[in-house]
């Protein structure tokens, strides 16, 4: 999630900065949405963690 997409009233935390390491731009485009809020990004990153664990 790009920093510019974080709502102004959301407090920037280290978590937000870490989100910039993840690439969701193409996912946002294909889903037809403008951006993802931090809660959705957190859920998706958690799902990726699940997914990678289940592959073993």
């Amino acid at each position, binding site marked *: 999630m790009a920093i510019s997409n974080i709502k102004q009233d959301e407090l920037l935390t*280290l*978590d937000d900065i*870490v*989100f910039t*390491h*993840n*690439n*969701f731009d*193409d*996912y946002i*485009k*294909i*889903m037809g949405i403008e951006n993802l809020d931090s*809660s959705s990004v*957190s*859920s*998706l*990153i*958690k*799902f*990726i*963690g*699940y*997914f*990678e*664990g*289940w*592959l*073993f």
Partner: protein
Amino acid sequence: MKDGYFNYNYTTKGTGIDITLYRPKRSQSFLMNIKNNILGFGEVSFCETDNRFVLSISGEEDILKMIHLLNGNLSSLYALNEFQTFLNVYNERYNTSISFKPTLVDINLSTSWLSGFIDSTGFFSCHTTIKRNLDGVQILKRRRNDHKDFINEDHLDFRDKSYKFSIKFNICHCDRHIIESIRDVLKTKKKIFVHYNDDFDQPSYEFDTSSKAVVKKIKKYLNKPENFLETPENIEILSSWLNLFEDMNMDIHKENPQEFYNDVKIFNKLNKRLNVFGEV
């Protein structure tokens, strides 16, 4: 038995591809939550041959969503390699040219990736070691994730000061990169050991620690609301483990091995339950 698959079926009519995630019966609502509230696509159904529920993602459009979700956002080398092969098959099947992003995202304690990974693998376990110092140190029993062969307490004399009891927190996985990354994130310099098991076609890697600081760090991470464990089989077990480990006062146990052993029995009970849950 693994739970997640990239599938490709080559037939005379073409290549059929999909992604399937299997979970035990009790996790149906968990899969439904992923489908309805996290992904917003996929189908959950019951697979009678496996006696498990399965979340299937199929069709060009939904698989494309998964590809863009995973591409550039993976943290394990194993998953990255599996994904690259899958992406190549997808590009060929649907005549697309989506570029593979080969970078791995660093594991850290600032996102929920690790909690999801912990929840899906349940790979934390405990070593309990009982030693007796006679003519040197003799290891009587070293237990890991196995309850039934644990030393018979009837044979232990807790008044005998030559016995030494210890417990270690253990992390094990078959992706060395993952284990090294988690070790580094937890800021411990423990050596990583390699284990070979005839039941698996690849070695596993592990490190263990008795550091309360490390356990405290893990507990603090998992106590954040966004990092709560969600699979029914892990919530109670892992949180109980962490609480027990953190609360154990080793100084007291040195003076009172009976109390230590009582805690060990609780650990083993939890280990046994984890093993049961591990079977589908």
